[in-house]
C-alpha cells in the first residue's frame, strides 16, 4: 500500500507543481507587497515546469491513488492543451486594463487560476465519480470567484451571482445523478460501473440518472439547453477569464464527458464493434439532439449581438456544438476529431479574445459598431483578428477548416448525415456575424482626427505566437495528427 502511494506521488508531479505554485503565490504576495505581478510570473514559471514534467510522462499509462486518477496518453494530450491555454491566459492577464484597479490584490487572481488549472487537470484524468465531482467543483468554485474578481464593476458582480446560482444547482443535479448511478451499480469507480452496466437492462431510473449527469456536465460545456448562463457570465467577467472559461474549462468538461461515457457506457458486441450499454438506451441520440440545438441556437443568437464578448460567447456555444458532434460518434475516429478540434480551437478562440481585449484596452469599447475604421488605424491587429474569425468560421486555408473537415468527416462516416447538414448550414450562418466584424474594421474610413495606433513589441509577439499556429496548421498539420494518434489510448480500454 505504501509502495503504491509512493509510486502514485511520482506520477502526480505536474499537479504537485501547481499546488506548490498555489502556495508560493500566497507566500510571495505576503513578502513582496510592492511587486504586483509576481504572482503571474510564479504561475508562468510553474506552468512551464509543469509542461516539462508532463513531457516526462510521455507514453506512461497507469492508474494512481487506487484508481482515483489515471495517467494515460489521452489525459496527457489535454493537460498539454490546458498548460498552453494557461500560459496564454497569464500573458493576457498581465496586459488586461480591466484588472489594473485591483493591482494590490492581483496575486489572488493568479492563485485562483492555479487552483482552477489543478481542478481541470484532475477533471481530465479522474476515473472515480467522487474524484470527478471534486475536480469539477474545484474548477467551478475557483471560477465563480474569478468571474466576480473585478468586484467594483456592477456587471462582473451580477455575472458572478448568476454563475454561482446556476452552477451550484447544476452541480447538485449532477451529484444526485451520480448517487443514483452509485445505487444502481454499487460502485463509484467508472471501470466497475462499466462492468456492471454490461450486465444490466436499461431502466427508467437509469435514464434519469444519465440525464442528470448530462445536465451537470453539459452546464460546464455550455450546451443548449444548459447554456443560459454563458452569455451573461462571459459578458460580465473580465475578458481573460471569459477566454479561460470558453476554452480551457469547456475542453476539460468535454474530456470528462468522453472518458466517463467511453469507459462506462460503451462496450463491444460479439463481432468486436462498438455498442452502447446498457442495452436499449440511445444516449448518442440524446447527445446528437443537444449538439444540433447548441449549433442552431448559438449561431442564430450570435447574429444580433453588438458586444464583442457576447458575440464570442455565443460563438463559443456554437463551437461546443461542433465539438459535441465528435462526442456523439465516440469511436476512435470521433475522439481524434474532437482532439484535433480542441487543439485548433484553442489557438483561434484565444486569439480572437486577445485582439478583443487589446481593442478594449486601447479604445475602451466592446461594441462591434465602434470597430469602424480600425483596419486603417491598426492594420496588423485588425488583420490578425480577421484571420482568427475566418478560422472560427472554418474557411481554408486556416486551422479552423481542417478541424471542421475532420469532425464533419467523422460524423458522416458514422452515419450522422442530418447532424452534418445542420452543422454545414450553421457554418454558413456563422459567416455573417464573423465577417461583420471584419467589414466594420475595413470597409469604413476612420474619422479624420483619429490617428494610427501602435501596440508594443511584447503584445505583437504574443499575437504572432497565436497567429502562426492558426495559419501554419491550416496547411501542414501532420505532426498534430501523429500526436493525436499516439494520444488516443485511454487507460483500461
Amino acid at each position, binding site marked *: 500500500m505504501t509502495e503504491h502511494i509512493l509510486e502514485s506521488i511520482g506520477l502526480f508531479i505536474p499537479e504537485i507543481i501547481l499546488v506548490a505554485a498555489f502556495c508560493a503565490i500566497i507566500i510571495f504576495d505576503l513578502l513582496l507587497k510592492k511587486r504586483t505581478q509576481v504572482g503571474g510570473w510564479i504561475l508562468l514559471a510553474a506552468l512551464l515546469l509543469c509542461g516539462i514534467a508532463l513531457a516526462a510522462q510521455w507514453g506512461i499509462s497507469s492508474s494512481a491513488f487506487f484508481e482515483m486518477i489515471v495517467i494515460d496518453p489521452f489525459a496527457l494530450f489535454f493537460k498539454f492543451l490546458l498548460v498552453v491555454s494557461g500560459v496564454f491566459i497569464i500573458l493576457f492577464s498581465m496586459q488586461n486594463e480591466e484588472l489594473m484597479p485591483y493591482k494590490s490584490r492581483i496575486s489572488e487572481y493568479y492563485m485562483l487560476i492555479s487552483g482552477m488549472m489543478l481542478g481541470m487537470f484532475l477533471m481530465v484524468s479522474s476515473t472515480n465519480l467522487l474524484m470527478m465531482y471534486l475536480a469539477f467543483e474545484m474548477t467551478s468554485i475557483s471560477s465563480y470567484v474569478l468571474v*466576480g474578481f473585478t468586484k467594483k464593476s456592477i456587471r462582473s458582480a451580477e455575472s458572478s451571482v448568476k454563475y454561482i446560482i446556476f452552477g451550484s444547482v447544476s452541480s447538485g443535479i449532477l451529484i444526485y445523478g451520480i*448517487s443514483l448511478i452509485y445505487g444502481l451499480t454499487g460502485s463509484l469507480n467508472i471501470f466497475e460501473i462499466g462492468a456492471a452496466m454490461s450486465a444490466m437492462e436499461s431502466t427508467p431510473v437509469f435514464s434519469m440518472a444519465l440525464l442528470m449527469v448530462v445536465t451537470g456536465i453539459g452546464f460546464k460545456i455550455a450546451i443548449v439547453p444548459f447554456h443560459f448562463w454563458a452569455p451573461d457570465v462571459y459578458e460580465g467577467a473580465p475578458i481573460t477569464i471569459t477566454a479561460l472559461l470558453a476554452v480551457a474549462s469547456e475542453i476539460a468538461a468535454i474530456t470528462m464527458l468522453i472518458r466517463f461515457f467511453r469507459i462506462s457506457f460503451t462496450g463491444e458486441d460479439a463481432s468486436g464493434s462498438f455498442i452502447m450499454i446498457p442495452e436499449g438506451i440511445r444516449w448518442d441520440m440524446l447527445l446528437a439532439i443537444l449538439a444540433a440545438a447548441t449549433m442552431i441556437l448559438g449561431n442564430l443568437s450570435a447574429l444580433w449581438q453588438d458586444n464583442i464578448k457576447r458575440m464570442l460567447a455565443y460563438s463559443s456555444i456554437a463551437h461546443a456544438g461542433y465539438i459535441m458532434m465528435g462526442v456523439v460518434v465516440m469511436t476512435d475516429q470521433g475522439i481524434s476529431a474532437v482532439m484535433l478540434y480542441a487543439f485548433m480551437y484553442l489557438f483561434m478562440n484565444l486569439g480572437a479574445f486577445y485582439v478583443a481585449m487589446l481593442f478594449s484596452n486601447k479604445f475602451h469599447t466592446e461594441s462591434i459598431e465602434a470597430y469602424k475604421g480600425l483596419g486603417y488605424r491598426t492594420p496588423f491587429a485588425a488583420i490578425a483578428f480577421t484571420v482568427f474569425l475566418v478560422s472560427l468560421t472554418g474557411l481554408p486555408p486556416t486551422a479552423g477548416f481542417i478541424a471542421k473537415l475532420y469532425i464533419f468527416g467523422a460524423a458522416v462516416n458514422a452515419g450522422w448525415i442530418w447532424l452534418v447538414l445542420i452543422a454545414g448550414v450553421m457554418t454558413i450562418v456563422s459567416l455573417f456575424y464573423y465577417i461583420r466584424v471584419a467589414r466594420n474594421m475595413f470597409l469604413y474610413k476612420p474619422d479624420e482626427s483619429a490617428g494610427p495606433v501602435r501596440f508594443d513589441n511584447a503584445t505583437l509577439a504574443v499575437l504572432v505566437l497565436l497567429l502562426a499556429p492558426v495559419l501554419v496548421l491550416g496547411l501542414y498539420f501532420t505532426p498534430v495528427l501523429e500526436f493525436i494518434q499516439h494520444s488516443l489510448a485511454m487507460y483500461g480500454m
Partner: protein
Amino acid sequence: MENSFLQWLAQPELTHYLMLGAMLFCIGITLVLTRRNVIMVLMGIELILNSANINFIAFSRYSVITLDGHLTALFLIILAAAEAAVALAIVLNIYNRFKTIDIDEISLLKG
C-alpha cells in the same frame, strides 16, 4: 389499510430513505425555481446537495459492503460548506452594488 401503512412506515428500509431524498431534491428544485431572494435560492441548493447525501448513505448502508457512499457524503458536506462560503461572499458584494438581493432586479445583462 391505515394500519398497514403505519406498519410500513414504522420499519424503515432503503425505499424510505430514497423517498426522503427524492422529496428533498424536489423541494430544493422548487425553492430554486420559485424564490426570488438569493439567500432562499442558496438554501434550496443546500437541500439538493443534502438529498444526494441521503441517497449515498442509504445506498451504502443497505445495498453494498464498501464505505464509498459514506465517504462521499463526508466530502459533500465539506464541499457544500465551501460553496456556501463563496456564494455568501458574492451575495454580499451584490448587495453592496445593487442594494438588493432580489434576483429579478439584478438583471443588467440581457440579450
